[in-house]
């Protein structure tokens, strides 16, 4: 479980996060939604430690990430897997080298054990036999899947996904959503997903947080969000005409 308390972050005069409190539960897909500039990405970057918050605390199963020493942070980070918006795969490496990278750095596995784990992870994301391909030889959807395979290589307790569907066609997007959901349930990870895709929010989300202008404006489940009376949230989730037609 990840608990966030009073998280604030500013860039110069601009306060992006104005004091966010949130709980992200284990074994659930926790969705963060909000319009562009609402602070979703900054929130995720603070939680994974890419940005240092100005105030507040981030508790990973009770361990405060903000006040931790560098060495403790490094150990905790080995429990974190992250899927980046554009996959962030190392383009100088092959598919299997990308997945093996954290294993080589942080485990004492033999070559055979690393190969086995890489094959398991690639099988899990439905990419068996693609080990030797270079990153520039595979499609956007495959890159996302390799990104997921790399993220789960160390068997993480916490999985972060930043816009996992961006740039993907609807069918591939659904495959990725389904895969993240399955992994969350199978490995009981605390999964946090930043997304704009309302289909994935409604179909695969367990808990949803809506950010507006740096504050948590709403929190609930997919069933609750469908029937919300909050005008601002309704404007956001039913921005597309066909969604409005569906609800009417």
């Amino acid at each position, binding site marked *: 479980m990840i608990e966030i308390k009073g998280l604030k972050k500013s860039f110069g005069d601009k306060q992006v996060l104005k004091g966010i409190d949130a709980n992200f539960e284990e074994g659930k897909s926790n969705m963060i939604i909000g319009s562009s500039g609402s602070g979703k990405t900054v929130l995720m970057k603070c939680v994974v430690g890419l940005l240092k918050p100005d105030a507040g605390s981030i508790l990973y199963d009770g361990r405060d990430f903000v006040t931790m020493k560098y060495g403790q942070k490094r150990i905790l980070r080995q429990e974190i897997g992250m899927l980046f*918006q554009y996959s962030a795969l190392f383009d100088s490496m092959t598919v299997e080298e990308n997945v093996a990278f954290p294993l*080589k750095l942080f485990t004492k596995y033999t070559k055979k054990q690393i190969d086995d784990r890489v094959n398991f992870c690639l099988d899990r994301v439905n990419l068996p036999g693609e080990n030797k391909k270079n990153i520039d030889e595979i499609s956007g959807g495959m890159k996302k899947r390799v990104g997921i395979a790399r993220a789960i290589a160390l068997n993480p307790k916490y999985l972060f996904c930043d816009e996992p569907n961006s740039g993907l066609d609807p069918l591939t997007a659904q495959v990725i959503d389904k895969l993240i959901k399955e992994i969350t349930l199978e490995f009981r990870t605390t999964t946090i997903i930043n997304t704009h895709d309302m289909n994935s929010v409604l179909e695969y989300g367990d808990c949803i947080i809506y950010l507006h202008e740096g504050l948590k404006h709403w929190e609930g489940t997919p069933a609750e969000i469908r029937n919300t009376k909050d005008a601002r949230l309704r404007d956001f989730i039913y921005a597309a005409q066909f969604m409005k037609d569906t609800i009417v």
Partner: protein
Amino acid sequence: MRFFFFFGQYLLLLRNTFSKPEQRSIYMRRIFDESQAIGVESLGIVAIVSVFIGAVTTINTSYQLVSSWIPDSVIGQIVSDSTILELSPTIASLVLAGKIGSNIATEIGTMRVSEQIDALEVMGVNSAGYLVLPKIIAALFMLPALIIISMLLSILGGYLVGMYAGIVAPDHFLSGAQSTFKVFTFVFAMIKTVTFAFLISSVSSYQGYYADGGSIEVGRASTRAVVYSSVLILLFDYILAQLIL
């Protein structure tokens, strides 16, 4: 004030770069890969530049020595001394600042804007150590090797032009080149080279590491890497000459 901000940022990057590495075996492989990119792949351009430096120095020296009282062997002397003391370490390093510096800044800058550095950080990898340290170590070993090759090729270029253009007899050229050779000159050239290697690799890495934005910013970082490395090479060339000679 901006200078102090950037200088402080550069020092912080160096501190992180030289902190304890995660897995030595992976670092060793990266150092070999970087040595290939920085050293072996720069051999061609260094060879071309060096041969022409020596050839042109021979012609220029012969043109300026108009008195028949001055022996031909002086040409070999001047070509050898100026090559070892100044031309090879400085000119070749300036050329390498262009080739290696832009390469390093573009590579690291692209990794920054494509979130690959963020991916390393999230995994708990010291990204500065992983990316920058192998480049600095490779540069510190490979640049002196390249400059020694450059010195030899430059003297060879001067020798061949002197011989085939009828400027100086081969034995006169060689005796002149050998007559004033001092070990100290060579040591000084190596001190300069190691300093330039550190400047090129660290400044270019710094420019790439803190690139922010998209492809345009990566291009700018690459340009800054070359310009700043070149200016620093000239500045430290002067400082070292003033201090040591």
